[in-house]
């Protein structure tokens, strides 16, 4: 029996890094501590006996087991033969695999897109329009006295967010934790998060933009109508005043804003409202990112090609315009003739028309688990679970990079996402008649004790 500490949870963008995982002598994960129910579940089901361990390939309409070489070769052929392949997913894996994916996408002249397209892609578009005043989560811990959750429900979706960072945690200038903070919730439903709130505002559906516009008008002391979005003038002015009077405020927003009427414009005006508030006090804003490393997918794409997601390499240089180059739009317009899906499940999450397009073209699926996406694939390659069976970088919702730990070995014969992508890429280069570089050794995961300045804390 051994225990790994400081384990990073590979589930949501909260990226808790204080988990402890017990592993028994048979190398089975037997218990986790500090994880929320979702995180615990991810660890406890990782080694489930029904996990598929062998690649499969579609023959005569059926997915049948094949060798790894066959699966790699077929995948490479699919990509090389395609005029406009789509490489989508990348959010539940580490940055090392994402980097390999960028190189592959460029190599096959495809489009590289991550799950931002169906979560916070609109936030990115808004950031590109007006910027974003933000911070790391520790700033909230230590300073925030006003916390506004708009269109997000951390109690259910990011279970440890409020206790670790945003509401209950006691910080340097917030010694009394929640008692030092005012909690405001704006949501079209009375969510679990809303039940807690000091102030709860329930606007009409699809009118968040107008409500924020009203708040900006109120901040400037201009006249307001009797009500906006179903919220009375008095309530709007009360919220505006509370924000203005705070010493350090933060807005957290979720898909209640990004995926409702107006999409990126809702975020644009939320950011603009935040910027306005800095005339009076310190106010910042942050997206509640979903997948644990969707933020990393954006980061890697940005530094490698300059654009965060939805990048089309077809012409040999990066092109970016979500609406055209985004996975959803490409599939909706049937502009892909092959796809590689990794570390995401569009089969479960995309609208049915797009899923039909996916099912109609040659498609490679890479995932530790069988999903609706893998079931419609031409080739399915099972992979190791990053953050449990493989170490590597992930970026938290506030873009803090943390190295995920490896707590157990992957099942025998199961490759990591990066190894699979690299092998496909090498085969692609062979098929393209390019010189294939020598294999560089795969780096060992970092040991917690690699750094000698660390205090060994007794437990």
């Amino acid at each position, binding site marked *: 029996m051994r225990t790994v500490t400081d384990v990073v949870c590979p589930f949501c963008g909260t990226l808790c890094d204080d988990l402890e995982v017990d592993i028994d002598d048979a190398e089975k994960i037997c218990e986790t501590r500090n994880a929320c129910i979702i995180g615990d579940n991810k660890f406890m089901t990782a080694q489930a006996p029904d996990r598929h361990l062998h690649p499969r390939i579609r023959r005569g309409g059926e997915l049948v087991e094949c060798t790894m070489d066959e699966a790699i070769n077929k995948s490479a052929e699919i990509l090389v033969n395609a005029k406009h392949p789509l490489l989508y997913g990348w959010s539940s894996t580490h940055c090392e695999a994402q980097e390999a994916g960028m*190189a592959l996408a460029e190599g096959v002249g495809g489009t590289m897109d991550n799950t931002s397209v169906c979560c916070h892609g609109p936030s990115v578009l808004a950031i590109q329009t007006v910027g974003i*005043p933000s911070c*790391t989560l520790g700033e909230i811990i230590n300073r925030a006295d006003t916390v506004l959750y708009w269109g997000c429900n951390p109690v259910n979706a990011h279970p440890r967010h409020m206790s670790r960072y945003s509401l209950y945690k006691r910080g340097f200038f917030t010694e009394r934790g929640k008692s030092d903070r005012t909690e405001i919730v704006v949501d079209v439903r009375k969510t679990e998060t809303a039940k807690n709130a000091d102030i709860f505002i329930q606007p009409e559906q699809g009118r968040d933009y107008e409500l924020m516009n009203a708040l900006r008008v109120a901040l400037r002391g201009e006249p307001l109508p009797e009500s906006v979005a179903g919220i009375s003038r008095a309530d709007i002015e009360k919220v505006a005043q509370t924000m203005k009077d705070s*010493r350090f405020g933060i807005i957290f927003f979720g898909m209640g804003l990004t995926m409702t009427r107006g999409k990126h414009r809702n975020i644009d005006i939320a950011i603009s409202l935040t910027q306005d508030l800095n005339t009076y006090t310190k106010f910042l804003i942050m997206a509640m990112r979903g997948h644990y490393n969707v933020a990393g997918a954006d980061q890697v794409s940005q*530094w490698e*090609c300059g654009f965060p997601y939805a990048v089309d390499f077809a012409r040999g240089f990066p092109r970016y315009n979500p609406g055209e180059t985004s996975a959803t739009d490409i599939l909706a317009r049937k502009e892909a003739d092959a796809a590689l899906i990794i570390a995401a499940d569009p089969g479960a999450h995309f609208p049915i028309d797009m899923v039909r397009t996916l099912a109609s073209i040659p498609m490679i699926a890479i995932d530790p688990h069988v999903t609706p996406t893998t079931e419609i694939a031409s080739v399915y390659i099972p992979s190791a679970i990053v953050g449990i069976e493989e170490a590597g970088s992930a970026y938290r919702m506030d*873009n803090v990079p943390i190295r995920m730990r490896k707590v157990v070995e992957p099942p025998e014969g199961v490759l990591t996402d990066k190894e699979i992508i690299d092998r496909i890429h090498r085969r692609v280069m062979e098929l393209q008649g390019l010189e294939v570089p020598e294999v560089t050794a795969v780096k060992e995961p970092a040991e917690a004790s690699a750094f000698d300045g660390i205090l060994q804390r007794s437990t």
Partner: protein
Amino acid sequence: MSEILVKNGYVYDPKNGVNGDVMDIAVRDDKIVDVVSPTAKVIDASGKVVMAGGIDIHAHVAGPKVNVGRNMRPEDKLFNTSKRTKMTRSGGGFSVPSVFETGYVYSRMGYTQVNEAAMPPLLARHTHEEMADTPLIDQSAYTLLGNNWLVMEYIKRGEQDKLNAFVAWMLKATKGYCIKLVNPGGSEAWGWGMNCVNVSDPVPYFDVMPSEIISGLAAANETLNLPTSIHVHPNNLGHPGNFQTTLDTIKLLEGVLPRDGKKRDQVINFAHMQFHSYGGNTWKDFETEAQTIADSINKNKNMTVDVGFVTLDETTTMTADGPMEYYLHNTNHLKWANADIELETAAGVVPYIYSPKISVCGIQWAIGLELALLIDDPMQAFITTDHPNAGPFRRYPRIISWLMSNQARLDRLETLHKVVPDRVAIGGISRVLDFYDIAKMTRAGPARALGLGNMKGHLGVGADADVAIFDYNPKTMDPTIDPAGIEKAFTNTAYTIKGGEIVVIDGEVVSKGHKRTIWVDATDGVVDPVILHDIDKKFLRYYSVTMNNYPVQDEYVANGLIVKPEAA
């Protein structure tokens, strides 16, 4: 074993006193050597300028705020992309290029080392991930410590020994190269939307003054005998009349000498001094104070500056000086990103257009050039644009052409806003620099200031085999009347050799290179269990990550080169 002989070039190597002599330079593996065998690959450099590889002492090329800039500016790349080739990856960006583009453009200009000027410790892993992905050039990153809570607490309590130990711990934890201060105290004040404008403005709650932070960290730097001095972005950047704050900062270290004068001469490097040499009281009566600042630097041989030339381009400003960026956003009303980092620092990003039609921008352009020309010794003033803040690094060749040609400066001056000539002195400065001076400002000078003067920035035996060969004949061509020729020659080298490997031929990248990441480990005999306890307490209570997940693991350091200071 690989050998190269660079034959018959006009060599400019200030460290070794070589000023345009025709010489051969021999390379074996990754070092400069005396002689090579007859089978060595020969590069004919006759009629060409040969210098050591260029060193950028201050640029923002990798890390979180650079990536914020990339993300925020798709329009910077819309029609500014490059295609992939068999040797190179695609990329793009005029003012904030992608990492591949960064490596390629620097290499084409003959640069072989670029230092990232601001690394927030909590996000150091990100900076290293980007540096590892940046091809061809050696890199290091400067660790931001001027607004760190523990730094301020130790200084407030007068615990210099603990401060020294903490600095050593932080450099190692972040795999950083030196102590960087950005708006000391002011970026912490920005946590509350405030600022420290002068060196005597107390930091809210922490009750220390920027002057104490600067002196305290300078003392730690010398006690630890770090390879380079502290690098300081002083308070009050970019405001009319700020030269007074700059003089106050200079005073703090007047007469202080480096602990090891053999390696370097300075105890402080002022970052982007152009932004800190402003006169006037408002933007309306804004004028140059470059002469005042240059006089002071001429008197203080223990100080160096990197200039931060304004290039009159559209660019993207980014700095750990959070309040400055908010001020800029309120000035130009363009998009604004802010990224405060818990317990450590802040950052902001705002696009900016240095328009030649606007008087302020023209005056800023002149101030940079004046500083470079009025500081007597080019070993004290280095060419930078504080990339991308005053302009993108790809404009270095143009800056060199201005420094080498008075005519080029006067021609540019004539196109600027009509009030500019009256507010600046550049029109009356006829000094022109030569290749020897340029080699000091871009090679020998930055290498010595970084404490790497034996390894980098020169072509003597034993130096790293980093060589730039420019297709410009100093005997038949005249830079004082040929700015376009200079700009062209310095934009694309005939050859760039990095670590003994030819990486660029005639402006084309021909190798994937073997970049190195340089960092400083000064912990030997220094790190004290008491400060580990202090650090641990900060993590338990105030940080959002655990202490064990904080230090940058070895995996992130690409081909690392550790510099250990001689025992303190």
